[in-house]
């Protein structure tokens, strides 16, 4: 029963990790940028939700109506002000640029909120639904449902809209996309906006389930990168599957053996998968074939 509980926990927690990793993989798929700032942007999302809740008493889920647009605009602003002006060695330079963005954001957050840990403590955060001996924490149920809705929305945007076609065209061949009249700059800007917007949602759940400070971003980014590599850079569904697999492996190993070996086991699985499929579970080749 404990193993079943661990699997349930892993699936539920994996859902919101997919939300955080989704933005990272989407940005890479379109822009060939490994967004090293994604971890701190998740934490920024957590702080925004925290500030709205602590000072204006706005429920964190409701607050997403504010934080997602704000973060979306931040993403677009970062693209136009810092990524687009890069003319040479764009992949490497943009990687460094995003690292710099992350460092600046971390410094600002440290200055405003100090290094004291904070947490978003809502009334429903501690409640749970019990079915037999199985426990379903409400916050993880809500977060999982929200992840499904948001990732489903992004999926719809990618595969059922004109913008999605433009975006996928940009992913497959940016030069050809430009030749057929697609404004790849706007596609890239919107993609970064969406990626950062997803970080706002993921950050809100992170803040509800963890106490955090700006330095929390370092643990996050390493995990998010592992998820994205496992799922395949650029694949949204790959990120979802990888998040759930990672969390289920870690949680099951933690209860049947030791949490110390949970992450090690996941990384062993990751190495094995990469040996067999260097592009990850649903890496670029698979995505572009969709």
């Amino acid at each position, binding site marked *: 029963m404990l193993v079943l509980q661990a699997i349930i926990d892993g699936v539920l927690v994996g859902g919101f990790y997919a939300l955080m990793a989704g933005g990272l993989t989407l940005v890479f798929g379109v822009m060939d940028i490994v967004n090293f700032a994604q971890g701190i942007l998740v934490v920024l999302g957590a702080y925004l939700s925290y500030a709205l809740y602590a000072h204006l008493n706005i429920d964190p889920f409701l607050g997403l109506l504010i934080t997602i647009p704000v973060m979306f605009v931040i993403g677009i602003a970062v693209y136009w002000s810092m990524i687009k002006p890069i003319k040479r060695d764009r992949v490497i330079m943009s990687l460094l640029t995003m690292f710099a963005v992350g460092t600046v954001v971390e410094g600002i957050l440290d200055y405003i909120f100090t290094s004291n840990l904070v947490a978003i*403590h809502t009334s429903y955060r501690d409640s749970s639904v019990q079915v037999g001996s199985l426990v379903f924490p409400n916050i993880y149920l809500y977060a999982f449902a929200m992840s499904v809705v948001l990732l489903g929305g992004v999926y719809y945007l990618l595969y059922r809209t004109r913008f999605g076609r433009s975006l996928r065209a940009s992913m497959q061949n940016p030069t050809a996309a430009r030749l057929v009249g697609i404004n790849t700059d706007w596609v890239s800007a919107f993609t970064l906006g969406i990626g950062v917007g997803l970080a706002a949602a993921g950050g809100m759940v992170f803040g509800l389930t963890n106490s955090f400070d700006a330095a929390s971003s370092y643990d996050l980014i390493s995990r998010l990168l592992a998820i994205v590599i496992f799922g395949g850079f650029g694949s949204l569904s790959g990120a979802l599957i990888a998040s759930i697999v990672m969390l289920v492996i870690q949680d099951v190993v933690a209860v049947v053996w030791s949490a110390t070996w949970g992450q090690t086991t996941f990384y062993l699985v990751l190495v094995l998968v990469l040996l067999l499929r260097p592009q990850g579970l649903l890496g670029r080749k698979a995505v572009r074939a969709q």
Partner: protein
Amino acid sequence: MKFHGKPGPRPRTRTAALWTAGVAAVALVIAGCSSSSSSGSSSGSGSSTAPITVGISVSLSGDFSGDGLATKQGYETWAAYQNAHGGILGRQVKLTFLSDGSSPTQVITNYQKLITVNHVDFVMGPYSTLLTKPASAIANRYNYVMIEGIGGGPSVFSQGLHNVFDVSASASFQLITFAKWLVATQQPETIAYAAMTDPFLQPMLDGARSYLTAHGFKSVVYKLYPLETTDFTPIASAIAASKAPVVVLGTMPPDGYAFVQDLIQDKFSPKVLVEASGPDQGSAFIKAVGASNTGGIMVPNTWYPGSTYYQNTAMVQLYLKKFGGTADNISADVAEAFSSGQVLAQAISHLKSTSNSALESYLHSGVTFQSVQGPVKFLADGENGAATPFVFQWQNGTLQDVLPTGVGTTKPVVAVKPAWGAKG
């Protein structure tokens, strides 16, 4: 909660490391050449009226700079107190500080210099286990005793040295007051343990576990987790499934908060819950877990300003006079450094000698000293076997000192933790 086993400085670049190693090597050679006449036990500064000199390496820059400064202030407060009360054997105490930049390499050079160039009578410990370990080895090479209060990680005592003496509660003794209370007041129960794989937290948990197991308490869950863990639900689920009435957690604040939240979600409220760190964070803990969920949760601590242990009130007053601030903001590092000085002073006063070899023998003789952190009695490996760390407990929204009884303003322990949401 002050952790002695702090992580080391960030890795340096290869070039910087090579430079540092080169400089250290040259310094070692020079120090070695100049030390031939000073090897062996120091026998004092010659004149019976000359100050007694004590050398200490402190971390005034680098990762430990904050704690390093507090450590220095603690030693300075002790010296000021001692000198205001006639010094030791009628001689004033003179401290010599060298800054080590939080570097295990520099701390070796510093103690070499203090012993072989400055020819100090005694040395006392630097900040952290990381620095105390190499520092104590150097002191041992020159037959110097090293009394220290801020290097309590197991790696210090596993070196097999006979010259290192920790006046504070080492890692394995941090939960001993709690464990003794449990044995004295409760029937043997099942206990669930979990801790971060940290050089200080894990020995802390293991120390309590071995004591409690020896007294009939059965361990039903024992889980370790790495530092980077962010999802504690599986461990909390295992603890909840065990239904252990006593839960002992070796936590840092973020995981301390997370465990409370996860146990609430699992609808499991143990009878006794103690966390190594997290509940000691005051309002941050309340905000993280909710005020109504704090009741009954316990946390150990090595020192607090309101303690009535030996000379504590005088130390607090003198510190505030010298450095300002408020009593609540005095770091435990200050007390730990002050304690080191207290033990040194008591031992020298008894011996009426500044011989390090005599001092080492006396410290190993089983005599009990008094300090602002409580009694000090050294075990064979140099740990303080009489350490009596405090235990605090959340009661009605306030963190109260509850153990050991009779020290400070202790309140009775709430033996059964109120249910989640019941405040209490």
